[in-house]
């Protein structure tokens, strides 16, 4: 072929994209990328939905005697405050259950998301389209840190309402004494709001773990799950054997529960016992008093939270850079 020299300006002109009026730009691309994650990783939505459905079904078929202090719940002198506490505890337990499921599926999702595309070679398809590595990694973080957590928060709220309705129906049908079923919309909303704050706190606090999973996902040549879970188990073990210390283990444990200690003001909470001096152990202070004991401000301002976010940002940036030329097929 002839070596036809062209000016850079002449050739650069060809790169100017044609009219892209029909295309919604960055926002549409991001929405498409996020949807694509739910097509591929169906466990992300199936697992929480299935868990919630199972809990509602359990509530539907709930029967038998609930005993409090050795007496049947129907004969127990239940105060309205106690009944409300039970409902709120149920709200929290539901939330915890769905969060556990979410932690599980989101962890495996993050470990898999940048590894699977190389394993099945589909990375060549993704990379044949005008989507940058930064946007690709961002879409996976949006799924893991925004869309799924918010979805689970909504789902937990809806599930609690559904279960409350089921119990109200049980009560109406005489399966359950009416005075144990309680509902207070204002308190329910306050608790939901607190759970949302806790959710945001948790997502931010766990960001370094998310970043670490992404990094393993982009680096692993095989068996990404083994690497992701093996390193945090083997390194402390090695430290224990070689040095006889357990600093790494303590650090990792801290990076998991540390922020909740701050939130609970280092265990200085008074949840169940309250100012118990009656004849019943099942005595609770008002919900308001309890919720007021959580130190959200201190937790969100904790330096370790922000140091963790910096570490997470570094790992996420590294994962983006590595994906650029990661090429082992």
């Amino acid at each position: 072929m002839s070596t036809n020299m062209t000016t850079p300006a002449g050739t650069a002109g060809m790169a100017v994209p044609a009219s892209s009026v029909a295309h919604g730009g960055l926002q549409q691309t991001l929405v498409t990328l996020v949807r694509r994650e739910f097509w591929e990783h169906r466990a992300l939505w199936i697992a929480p939905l299935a868990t919630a459905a199972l809990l509602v079904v359990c509530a539907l078929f709930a029967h038998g005697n609930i005993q409090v202090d050795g007496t049947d719940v129907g004969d127990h002198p239940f105060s309205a405050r106690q009944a409300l506490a039970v409902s709120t505890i149920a709200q929290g337990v539901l939330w915890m259950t769905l969060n556990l499921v979410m932690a599980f599926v989101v962890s495996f999702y993050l470990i898999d998301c940048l590894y699977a595309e190389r394993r099945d070679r589909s990375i060549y398809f993704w990379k044949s389209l005008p989507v940058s590595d930064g946007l690709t990694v961002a879409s996976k973080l949006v799924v893991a840190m925004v869309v799924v957590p918010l979805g689970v928060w909504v789902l937990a709220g809806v599930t609690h309402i559904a279960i409350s309705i089921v119990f109200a129906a049980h009560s109406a049908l005489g399966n359950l004494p009416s005075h144990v079923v309680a509902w207070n919309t204002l308190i329910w909303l306050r608790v939901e709001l607190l759970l949302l704050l806790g959710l945001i706190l948790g997502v931010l606090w766990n960001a370094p773990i998310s970043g670490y999973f992404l990094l393993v996902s982009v680096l692993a040549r095989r068996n990404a799950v083994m690497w992701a879970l093996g390193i945090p188990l083997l390194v402390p073990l090695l430290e224990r054997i070689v040095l006889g210390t357990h600093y790494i283990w303590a650090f990792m444990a801290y990076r998991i529960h540390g922020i909740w200690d701050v939130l609970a003001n280092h265990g200085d909470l008074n949840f169940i016992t309250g100012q118990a001096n009656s004849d019943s152990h099942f005595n609770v202070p008002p919900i308001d008093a309890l919720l007021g004991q959580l130190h959200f401000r201190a937790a969100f301002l904790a330096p370790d939270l922000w140091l963790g976010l910096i570490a997470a940002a570094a790992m996420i940036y590294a994962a983006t850079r590595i994906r650029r030329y990661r090429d082992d097929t």
Partner: protein
Amino acid sequence: MTAVIEARGLTKSFGAQRALDGVNFTVQAGRIVGVIGPNGAGKTTALKAILGLTSFTGELRVMGLDPRLQRDALMRDVCFMADVAVLPRWMKVSQALEYVEGVHPRFERSVAEGFLKKTDIHMSSRVGQLSKGMVTQLHLALILAIDARLLVLDEPTLGLDLLYRRKFYDTLLNDYFDKQRTIVLTTHQVEEVENLFTDVIFINHGQVALDSPVEEIGSRYQQLIVSAEQAGAARSLKPFYEHKVFGRVAMFFEGRSAAELSALGELRTPSIADLFVAKMQRVTP
């Protein structure tokens, strides 16, 4: 004519081994270029460099852009098919269309749907359920619907049966290619597609062994079939490769005039496949 791809001193090393060793070539707009070479010759590495999928040294401009730094902008104008079966197995056909429509500003969904209607592919099927040939058809449907300036295909029909291969190249040539577009294609099955090419580049051991428009091959390279008696005289004109054909000898010359060769035997324009074999044999003694 404008250069779509310009490579100068393109070099890529894997440890001590040089996959590309100072390669120079230019691809003009509106051409169909066959990049041909044995396995491990550096073809795929060259394509990956063009697509910004690998790091390299040297100079490379694709549509005036540096694939290392401006990959995202480049991919609006460049389309590629790395190999068969890189579409994810979990994806539904409808999702594939929806995805490309969502991320590519120049994707015309109706074109892809029109092409798919002519195949046995159903919208609700998952890629994993399709045959290899159908997956390639689906990928082709997506590519046809993207208004790209440069299409890069790396062994797009590897492992497909003859009917799918034939249909693939027919579609490419009739429904896709026009003078505004450029296609760069690597393949093993040279015989089947040599009529498709307007230009060929042979790559071997990381170097360009031949780079020529197809219409110039006849004036640059000659294949001479001579009888055994004439072989000695023909050899004095220094063929770069020869092999025996039914008791006669086929010799390959570069830059000889028809007049001096035709006196010795039967003169032909070598096919790209024959020329490829001749060239590769020469550089690998």
